[in-house]
């Protein structure tokens, strides 16, 4: 790891382990550079969400070092941290049926003085295809609409900063493919314009292959691979999920992967 890299990276994990209940996860070691798009893949229960909790500072490392923007992650004051990294959650529920405008504005609640709040809320809503939902109550929205509002909230949170970190926890799994596509596009655009890095937990291998430039593999609570997407091969994926995969290539040269019918013999 060169000196120059150390100065510019957003986040670095150095042999970080973490415990959740009886299990220990890790060690995790990787570096996230500004503007990177990283997908985290792995079977269910492998520890993907635990990794995300660690990065979100919901869990404290047992050992190793987590550095966020030149400062140990644990030393960040929560309000300061909230201006540099945002998390798009898996569940969208909000208590009491708050109005949509307020929910989006909550992304910026840690800022004491925020004169441009109203205009940022509107722009964030537009970018998340949620402008038409302003003025409605959150609890009257459909699942897809709730996802859009939560996304707008995260956009508002990181609207006027650069080179932040956006953590995404499988937020779109329950949505239809068209909506998934347009929302992922919105996230890419938002992040690219500001140099934010994205780290997303994904179940959809194809989405990861198509939209992300780097893939981190997690299995049995540990990191088992960190690849640039072009280097990922079918056998690597088969080993990660313990299934037979079949691949096809589209007219545009994109690889599409699907589980094959015969099960792979467990190694």
């Amino acid at each position: 790891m060169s000196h120059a890299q150390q100065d510019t990276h957003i986040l670095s994990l150095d042999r970080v382990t973490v415990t959740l209940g009886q299990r220990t996860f890790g060690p995790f070691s990787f570096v996230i550079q500004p503007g990177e798009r990283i997908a985290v893949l792995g079977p269910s229960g492998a520890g993907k969400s635990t990794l995300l909790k660690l990065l979100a500072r919901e869990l404290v490392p047992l050992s190793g070092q987590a550095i966020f923007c030149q400062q140990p992650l644990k030393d960040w004051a929560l309000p300061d941290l909230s201006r540099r990294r945002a998390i798009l959650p898996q569940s969208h529920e909000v208590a009491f049926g708050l109005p949509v405008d307020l929910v989006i504005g909550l992304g910026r609640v840690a800022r004491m003085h925020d004169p441009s709040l109203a205009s940022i809320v509107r722009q964030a809503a537009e970018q998340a295809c949620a402008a038409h939902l302003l003025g409605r109550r959150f609890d009257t929205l459909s699942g897809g609409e709730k996802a859009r509002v939560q996304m707008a909230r995260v956009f508002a949170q990181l609207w006027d900063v650069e080179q932040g970190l956006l953590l995404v926890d499988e937020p779109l799994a329950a949505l239809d493919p068209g909506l998934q596509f347009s929302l992922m596009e919105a996230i890419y655009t938002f992040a690219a314009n500001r140099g934010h890095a994205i780290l997303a937990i994904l179940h959809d291998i194809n989405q990861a292959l198509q939209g992300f430039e780097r893939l981190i593999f997690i299995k049995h609570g540990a990191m088992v691979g960190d690849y640039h997407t072009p280097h990922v091969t079918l056998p690597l994926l088969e080993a990660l999920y313990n299934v037979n995969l079949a691949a096809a290539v589209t007219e545009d040269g994109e690889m599409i992967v699907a589980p094959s019918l015969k099960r792979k013999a467990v190694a």
Partner: protein
Amino acid sequence: MSTSIGAISLTSRLTTGLLNRPVWFLWLVLLLCFWVAAWAGAVPVTADDWRVLWRQDEPLTSGAYVLWHLRLPRTLFAALVGAALGLSGALTQGLFRNPLADPGLLGVTSGAACAAALTIVVLAGSGMDIPVAWRFWILPLAAFAGAVGVCLLLDTVARWLTADSIAGLLLTGIALNALAAAIIGLCTYLATDEQLRSLTFWTLGSLAGGSWPLVAVLSLLLLTAIWYVWRLVGAMNALALGEAAAAHVGIHVRHLRRRVIILVALLCGFSVAWCGVIGFIGLVAPHIVRLIVGPDQRRLVPLAMLVGAIILLVADTTARIVAIPAEIPVGIFTALLGAPFFLALLTSVRKSG
């Protein structure tokens, strides 16, 4: 004819205008309630009594005496206690992201009542000779300590159980409630006739003790609470996202929780200490406000105080005047007046929504 039509349209415009500005509307209702409460009562009060009140050189008439020493402090006290209960209810519901939560559910109220019951039975039963000047303070202080004690215990135990989990806190509150109820039951069983009498005063709830010093103390407490809450309401909105997401947007959930809990303990402890157990307002006042203006804590908190003040003031005035010269326990009317109104509001909102 045309003037009457003009007057009607002006009135209806005024009414719609006011309904669109709930804060002004509720202030107006509260002032109206004060007006009625100050005039209504067992002792007839005339305009002349009011005039005497403002003059130094004239001796107080009996009407003016009642106004100054009994009715005005009690009326203000009722409104302030109602505001304190409404505020603590709004804070608790916001903290637990649960519209059913109120200080009663958390065990704060019963903790205060439990401490009072223990003081009555154990301390008085121990035969200790307490100086008369102390007797006046010892029960309120005990109730206050009980509320604060429950809150601190709640915070500690809940943190041991499940870090930062609000469900754990709620469960702890329910357990503490059961414990307090058991201790109060035990006290009632062990109490002598005389002690049982003191316990009854406590559990019935009464605003009869309202006096200027109490009004002054409670005003100060409420002003401090408002100043303090004002800086927390934005953060309380973020709690609606869930604890994890609130932390993600920069809210220190544990600090916020502790602050809110201590505030609720102060407000509830004070009201239980001086008025006994007055239920229902903490639950219903924030609910009514939520139905009118929605769940935004920044509007909910001040309006819940106003609505709490109105409910308790109306209930207490009713309790004072329906059975003159007798008085009916105020707790009966908080529920009797509040519940139907609440149900009506609930159904009308469901229909229109």
